[in-house]
């Protein structure tokens, strides 16, 4: 197909969709639509993880981001009853300046990439590190202590969220 392999086609399509949905997140006025577009962006990124043979991360990404975090966002938006009418808008000049800053940032990043050498990703047979077996071995061997610390962090976040969410602290 036009000299491109199926992987390259998939990469192109997924990248295009991810960027399009990402733009829609920023430019949609209705917050609920924004959340839904962000979920679609996350699915595209999960597709990229699958292309990179990082299967464990792809599944965790869908479960944690699309499944948990975005549902939390959706709940909060629905509780606050936000919609298009209540959506505050920045002044046009601020938006233009934000766009200009983004453009300059992209220009700098692309410019710094120009001199970099082209490294090709290895063929998939060589990369088995993304599988659950290999990743689990690293996670529960070398990174056991940080893993336990992460559990303390999640506990602290849970307690903090409950404390903040209470009506008044007695």
């Amino acid at each position, binding site marked *: 197909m036009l000299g491109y*392999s199926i*992987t*390259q086609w998939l*990469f192109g399509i997924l*990248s295009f969709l991810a*960027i399009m949905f*990402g*733009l829609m*997140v*920023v430019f949609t006025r209705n*917050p609920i639509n*924004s*959340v839904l577009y*962000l979920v679609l*962006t996350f699915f595209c*990124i999960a597709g*990229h*993880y699958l*292309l*990179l*043979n990082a299967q*464990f*991360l792809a599944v*965790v*990404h869908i479960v944690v*981001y699309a499944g*948990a*975090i975005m549902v*939390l*966002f959706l709940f*909060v938006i629905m509780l*606050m009853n*936000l919609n298009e009418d209540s*959506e*505050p808008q*920045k002044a046009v000049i601020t938006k233009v300046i934000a766009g200009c*800053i*983004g453009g300059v*940032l992209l220009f700098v*990043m*692309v410019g710094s*990439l120009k001199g*970099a050498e082209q*490294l*090709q*990703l*290895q063929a998939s047979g060589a*990369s088995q*590190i*993304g599988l659950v077996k290999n*990743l689990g071995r*690293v996670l529960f061997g*070398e990174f056991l202590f940080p893993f336990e610390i992460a559990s303390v962090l*999640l506990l*602290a*976040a849970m307690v*903090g*969220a409950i404390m*903040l*969410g209470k009506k008044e602290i007695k």
Partner: protein
Amino acid sequence: MINGIPINYYILLSAILFIIGAVGVMARRNAIIIFMCIELMLNAVNLLLVAFSTLHNDANGQVFVFFVMAVAAAEVAVGLAILSMVYRNIKSIDIDLLSKLKN
């Protein structure tokens, strides 16, 4: 499966996603949308970490992404609790109204 995609393409894609997030943070006033744009920026960085970890055939990058996800989950829980508290107090989540510290 991964044949012949230069790492530069992944860097470019991550840069574009990151900048979309950054522009969103600058151009929007709704605090929840700003939060979502921060998530988008985190994901752009995660994608790049996974790409480089595959490139160097080193699992540490993917473990790091795992920890970034855990921290992001904690951050969202606390952040949304703060936002709902703000909404309860000022009946809006417009960040331009949160300028009391200025005076």
